[in-house]
């Protein structure tokens, strides 16, 4: 079956595949903890993926690309905020609209700019995020057991992977150890309590939606400029929805969100590595493996995994009552 090195390699690709999920999941966490449901994670990642790849290609700088991706994602986040906070619209409809807008817009602009069938040209060199070797990775790789873990699993990812995983304790600390976090959690549970305490509900919710935009932007840029080398049509492939499932699975808590995303990433890594699994005569076809993350998503969303209580004021626009 699986020897040690194979396991390390599978886990290594788990980390890489879990990264965009984790960033999107944390993005959703901020938004939903503040009471704004966001099914537009997918759309925001998609525009970020396109604009980061396009700008990185044109400018040759992946960092400018990242900024462009974050900017595009934040524009859509602002649109969602406008619809659901300022105009108190339906948050699900706004999210769906953003997903459609992103899916259509990216392909259209890509075709107009690059004429390559709705994709960007391949990125190379400084137009991509390249792996970072952690110090002494080479030297320590010979050490039994720990060597490969350090050199193969922990070292050799792009900077965005480390940012994503550092964002987990960062989010935990922000939520549970700061004034902003207390207010953010409160506004998702009972905005009236925040309002009567003299704090702006609208301001807090825009802040949360803004953070959501930044994280989705990084997630999208990671897809197009680190995991892959360029943008292709619909490259998010439902990751925004898988991230939402992971968020529910994690019951809107940061550490649990990381483990949920790693689980989904692991399933994707397995599907990539083992195209057909032979279980004593019965061959599981590759399609089943590819579908596994999505099947798990459906299972989780159907509520088979314990009871997940969302933030109490989630999805409801705040209106002062008489």
């Amino acid at each position: 079956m699986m020897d040690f090195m194979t396991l390390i390699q599978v886990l290594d690709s788990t980390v890489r595949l879990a990264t965009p999920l984790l960033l999107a999941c944390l993005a959703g966490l901020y938004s939903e903890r503040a009471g704004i449901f966001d099914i537009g994670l997918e759309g925001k990642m998609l525009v970020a993926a396109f604009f980061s790849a396009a700008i990185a290609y044109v400018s040759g700088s992946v960092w400018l690309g990242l900024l462009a991706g974050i900017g595009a994602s934040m524009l859509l986040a602002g649109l969602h905020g406008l619809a659901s906070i300022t105009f108190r619209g339906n948050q699900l409809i706004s999210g769906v609209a953003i997903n459609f807008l992103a899916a259509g817009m990216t392909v259209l602009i890509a075709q107009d700019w690059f004429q390559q069938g709705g994709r960007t040209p391949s990125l190379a060199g400084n137009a991509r995020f390249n792996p970072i070797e952690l110090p002494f990775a080479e030297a320590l790789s010979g050490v039994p057991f720990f060597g490969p873990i350090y050199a193969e699993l922990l070292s050799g990812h792009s900077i965005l992977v480390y940012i994503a995983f550092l964002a987990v304790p960062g989010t935990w600390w922000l939520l549970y150890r700061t004034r902003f976090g207390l207010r953010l959690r409160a506004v998702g549970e009972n905005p009236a309590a925040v309002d009567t305490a003299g704090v702006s509900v609208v301001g807090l919710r825009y802040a949360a939606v803004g953070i959501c935009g930044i994280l989705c932007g990084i997630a999208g840029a990671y897809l197009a400029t680190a995991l892959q080398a360029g943008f292709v049509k619909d490259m998010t492939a439902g990751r925004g929805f898988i991230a939402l499932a992971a968020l529910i699975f994690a019951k809107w808590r940061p550490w649990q969100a990381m483990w949920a995303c790693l689980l989904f990433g692991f399933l994707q890594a397995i599907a990539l590595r083992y195209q057909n699994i032979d279980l004593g005569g019965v061959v599981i076809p590759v399609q089943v493996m590819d579908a596994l993350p999505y099947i798990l998503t459906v299972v989780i969303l159907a509520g088979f995994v314990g009871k997940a209580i969302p933030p109490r004021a989630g999805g409801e626009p705040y209106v002062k009552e008489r």
Partner: protein
Amino acid sequence: MTAPAIELKGISKSFGPVQANKDISISVAPGTIHGIIGENGAGKSTLMSILYGFYKADKGEVWINGKHTEIPDSQAAIAAGIGMVFQHFKLVENFTVLENIILGAEDGPWLRPSLSKAAKILDELATEYELNVNPDALIEEIGVGMQQRVEILKALYRQADILILDEPTGVLTPPEADQLFRILYRLRDEGKTIILITHKLREIMDATDTVSVMRRGEMTATVKTADTSPEELAELMVGRKVLLQVDKVPASPGAKVLEIENLRVTDDQGVERVKGIDLTVRAGEILGIAGVAGNGQSELLEVLGGMRPGVGVIRLNGEPLPLTGPGSDGQSRRAAHIAHVPEDRQREGLIMEFYAWENVAFGYHRDQAYQKSKLLMDNTALRQDADEKIERFDVRPANSWLTAKNFSGGNQQKIVVAREIERNPDLLLIGQPTRGVDIGAIEFIHKQIVALRDAGKAVLLVSVELEEILSLSDRIAVMFDGRIMGERLPDATTEKELGLLMAGVSGEAA
């Protein structure tokens, strides 16, 4: 002479065509408890919301401690030393007491120093005002009385000198209410100014130093409490003489109409709410069920009304009624001559977007008199029927083409009561008959209930208002935690005794 703690000068506020406050001026002396009394919709809450910065007045000025103060938002109100305890608490349920108290009043961007400082201040407040709460308890795990304390502590933590309480006793047991008033006296004696908004005359008479009466957006009088009487206040509120006591002759109970044996009911979450109760209601008798909200009364009514399945035996005029499956729905109950005025008229009694004439027929809309043919309803008959009932019950405005949401709470309730009582049922189930209903309509609805009893019908009354239970019932059963704690006769018991039963202290111990 010291400046008044609060002075409102010529406050006016309209919501569209509705003028909620008309040129209101009052002045409240520091260190007093000032009551504001008025019927629902008289504009009390609007006035206080203006003072707390929730709404902006169209006209008028607010003066705090002799200074003209602009209050554009709650932040400004807090800065001016005003704290408000809303009728519906503004607490985050899954936060601790301490977290709720510091929310919005943190000392800096980091939580830990704020929390430890708040814990210390809370300790001092607790000893100073006897406001003890466990700072680490979650809000959802403590009772409403405690939650209210947290709201008061929130205001004190923000160094409020003026405390506004909106209908504070609505959710409290009588002992809890007594405790609240002891806290308020103590706060007053420490120099705080307290505004108490209520519709309960007795609280005004017991607790306040001065009282202002509001009617239809206007301030009709401000008097010293010692110089007035409940009768006078009621008249000022309603604008005419009101009978505060229900006039009724002694009951002459007849045969058993409703018999309940070992009834058990579980709620939607699977929690057992009614834990094996036995009750009997006779013809010509009103049985009142007293209890704090949430002790199984709602579920009891719902089972009897066919809105929820149960386990046990229920007999109507000796015939067992099915509690599950076919024949246990609301339609069948009504066919068996059980009328039901549900506790929440807006959710269960009416369809708010439908016309009054449609609402008058609900539940009885399959009645032969309303059918034109097998497929079509006879709307003319429906409207005629509705108009008659609206006239007999003095529903205002007397227009059956208005949707239910356009009537005031009292008139909505009259529509529901008219629909149920006019059917001349054998048994009337009536929950919170006068919740959110103005005094004039209360008097009317009470008369109708007594009239039905005098016609030899059985009435099962559920109410959280102890005064209502005491004045209407011929027999009182107290419910606590899904069980009947005891039965009493209204003449042979006291509010104190019932209050203890409602709090779960058994009859023998009391």
